[in-house]
């Protein structure tokens, strides 16, 4: 028996036209399709009705429009929010998660623009967190001025991340060692490094697997600290880290599209041979870009400890990998990265309470998968056709 369509041949060919909106469309379609497939998986995983679940995720991540309105009203009148934490609580939590995602995303973008596949932003972030903690607890006195303290921590995070990015960059530039392998492996070195200091090593407070709380000057000021000026701020943990991310995005966009160095990066990323022909020093730029990438990830680490107010053995892994996904979804555009990071921050916050655990990572994976898949479909055309007869002709020394 013949199956229907079994005589059809699939034919994949490049599309003749490839306009720019295809990228945007495939990103959006990718997210929509990912939500669909994710819904199927949610159903299978026993998380109940997918639509209700998504609604719940949205509510957890961003809150409800009616509650925002109530919050805005309370904000202007100077009264406390009628719904309590429901007004701006979710948004605040999401913004707190957005900041590290945004910074690791930017770290990935700068490297990916030059086709350097830095998947070690996670490790670089860990090193940044470690160095910022060293400054906060061990190097500067507790009563240091807050601005001085936070700036010093940021510089330490940038330096540590930068140095940690320098290692694979140097190996790539001088010895042509594959940066994918080195950055990936250095992640685990960084995890263990932190674990050594915090869990068993010199920074551990006995059984707490923690450095203990930072002094107030070493933490981001949260909105809730200003509850006296407006009661709506009560309980909101949002902090200026998000501006660090936005500032870095603007700086990176300027660097990439307006500066001499960015021009070099884009030339190398597109065609290294032409870069050499134009007299651009490849080795130097590989190292510089990896340092820059590591520095941004290191800053993410500093931001995280300043927000968490402590460094523990359970310091969150995986921001660096989320950064890879967000970088692709934003098509390596720093401004798009601001928006996509925010959405992914929401995804992380919104899925926190959902059972089974790990829904966030699953959805991230599905989104990445589907976006790459849809992009392929847009870039190529798939045609089905009936095969025609092939006539073998004999002759020659060897037949096939």
């Amino acid at each position, binding site marked *: 028996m013949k199956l229907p369509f079994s005589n059809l041949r699939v034919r994949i060919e490049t599309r003749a036209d490839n306009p720019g909106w295809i990228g945007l469309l495939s990103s959006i379609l990718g997210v929509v399709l990912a939500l669909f497939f994710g819904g199927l998986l949610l159903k299978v995983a026993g998380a109940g009705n997918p639509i209700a679940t998504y609604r719940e995720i949205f509510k957890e991540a961003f809150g409800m429009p009616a509650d925002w309105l109530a919050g805005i009203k309370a904000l202007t009148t100077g009264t406390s929010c009628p719904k309590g934490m429901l007004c701006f609580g979710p948004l605040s939590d999401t913004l707190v998660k957005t900041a590290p995602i945004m910074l690791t995303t930017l770290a990935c973008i700068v490297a990916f623009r030059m086709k350097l596949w830095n998947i070690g932003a996670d490790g670089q972030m860990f090193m940044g967190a470690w160095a910022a903690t060293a400054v906060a607890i061990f190097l500067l006195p507790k009563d240091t001025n807050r601005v001085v303290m936070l700036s010093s921590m940021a510089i330490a995070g940038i330096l540590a991340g930068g140095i940690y990015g320098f290692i694979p960059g140097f190996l790539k530039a001088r010895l042509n060692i594959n940066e994918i392998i080195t950055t990936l492996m250095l992640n685990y070195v960084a995890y263990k490094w932190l674990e050594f200091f915090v869990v068993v090593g010199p920074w551990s407070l006995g059984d707490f697997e923690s450095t203990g709380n930072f002094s107030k000057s070493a933490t981001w000021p949260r909105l809730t600290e200003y509850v006296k000026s407006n009661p709506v701020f009560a309980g909101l943990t949002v902090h200026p880290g998000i501006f660090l991310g936005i500032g870095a995005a603007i700086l990176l966009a300027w660097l990439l599209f307006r500066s001499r160095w960015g021009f070099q990066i884009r030339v190398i990323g597109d065609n290294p041979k032409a870069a050499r022909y134009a*007299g651009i020093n490849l080795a130097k730029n590989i190292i510089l870009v990896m340092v820059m990438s590591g520095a941004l990830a290191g800053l993410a680490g500093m931001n995280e400890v300043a927000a968490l107010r402590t460094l523990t053995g359970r310091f969150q892994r995986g921001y660096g990998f989320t950064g890879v996904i967000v970088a692709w979804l934003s098509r390596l555009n720093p401004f798009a990265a601001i928006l996509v990071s925010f959405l992914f921050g929401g995804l992380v916050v919104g899925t926190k309470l959902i059972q089974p655990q790990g829904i966030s990572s699953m959805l991230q994976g599905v989104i990445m998968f589907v976006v790459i898949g849809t992009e392929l479909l847009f870039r190529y055309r798939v045609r089905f056709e009936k095969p025609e007869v*092939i*006539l073998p002709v004999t002759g020659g020394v060897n037949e096939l």
Partner: protein
Amino acid sequence: MVETSIAFEMKAIVKRFPGVVANDRVDFSCQIGEVHALLGENGAGKSTLMNVLAGLYRPEAGEIYVGGKRVSFRSPQDAILNGIGMVHQHFMLVPQHSVAENMVLGLRKPRFFLDLTRVEEQVKALGEQYNLNVNPRAKIWELSVGEQQRVEVLKMLFRGTKVLILDEPTSVLTPQEVDSLFHTLRDMTKRGHTIIFISHKLDEVLAIADHVTVMRRGKVTAFGISSKGVTKPQLARLMVGREVLFQVEKKKCETGEIVLNIEKLRAENDRGLPALRDISLKLHAGEIVGIAGVAGNGQRELAEVLTGLRRSTGGTITLLDRKLDDNTRWQEVGQSMAHIPEDRGSVGSVPGLSIAENLILKNYFRPPISSGLSIDRMKVRQNATRLVDEYQIATPSIDVPVRMLSGGNLQKVILARETSGHPKLMIAVHPTRGLDVGATEAVHKILIKQCEGGAAILLISEDLDELCALSDRIAVIYEGKLVGEVLADSVDISRIGLMMAGVKADS
């Protein structure tokens, strides 16, 4: 029966590429046992049509008949099953493998045991039969380009090909090797093979073909005209669509001071073998010096060493009284030295960046384009608008990525960038390779204008006609040595040909 004399027939073939219709309802067929030339400018669609016939491309529409039966090729294997094989411009051989090993590469038989000795005997026998002698045990990389081409032809015969397509087979050969190839091809037609000969060189086509089909802009403008009663100008008109001047108008330039002085220059190729052996050459202002030679005799290395892309292992380069070392040459490129690299797409330009950005590739770090750390976008756009206009680059906008441009327009972008800074020295490597007649004319005009403006030009080319038309002097390079030099106004092509093959100039 009439049908038996037709080797194959292509009907209303349509093949599109991004932005172009490469084949627009093309009909084509060949008689068994003829040499049929497919003539056209680059980009006319002749290679595309033959890639369709050889199973490499699949047409969007159209039908192919072999021996009267309709066929559809999904891969070159399908085409070979039907007796159609193609020798591409870039050879499809594995350099580290022997000739015999390359023969069986991709064959489905034998399945398990490879009897190479038998294959070697068969290859030897085939070679003798068709006068294509090559040692079946030699590794491909040990062979000259001409020999490699023979291996490609043998490979097709070995697979039982009856229809052999040759894509610009003479571009890599010396005049003497061309003669030998033509001899083999005639021999093959006597044995019932059909040859399709793709070319844009009129003399060759008239010398070898029985019939000529001319293509222009994806369409056939003349099908199967007999090569007997047709003249070169007639073919050229069919090919270009207008009258063509075969002679470039070039005034004798005033030669001035010595711009470039190369003394005993040595360099190695990528494999670490000597590629340049004591090259000495002087270039004067206002002079075009041609370097003739078969591909792979050190031309690429010479250009790369001069422009700082490759280190020299000895000798000196002096540019306008300044000795250049390996580190300073990079800075020279883009200031007083311009470089038209042989590979437009992969070296000379950045495909994904816009025309405007490609135009500043060499001066993005200098005023007025750059001020401080940033690049002045207004200046970039002004620069691009001016150059697009001045060099007549056909494009809808200066923001188009250069990968969308045709070869001719891309070359104009590169020339605009390289010549707009009024260089003292230009290194031009195959500046018109793959360009159509119109674009070639434009490139030649730009080069001559530079020369009249007092620049010294080193023109490295495989096209002897181009060298003769443009150069004041022609030096011949063979195995990394300059083996002789002739003045272009008293040039004798056959003498250059002999020197290209390594025969000493004075013999």
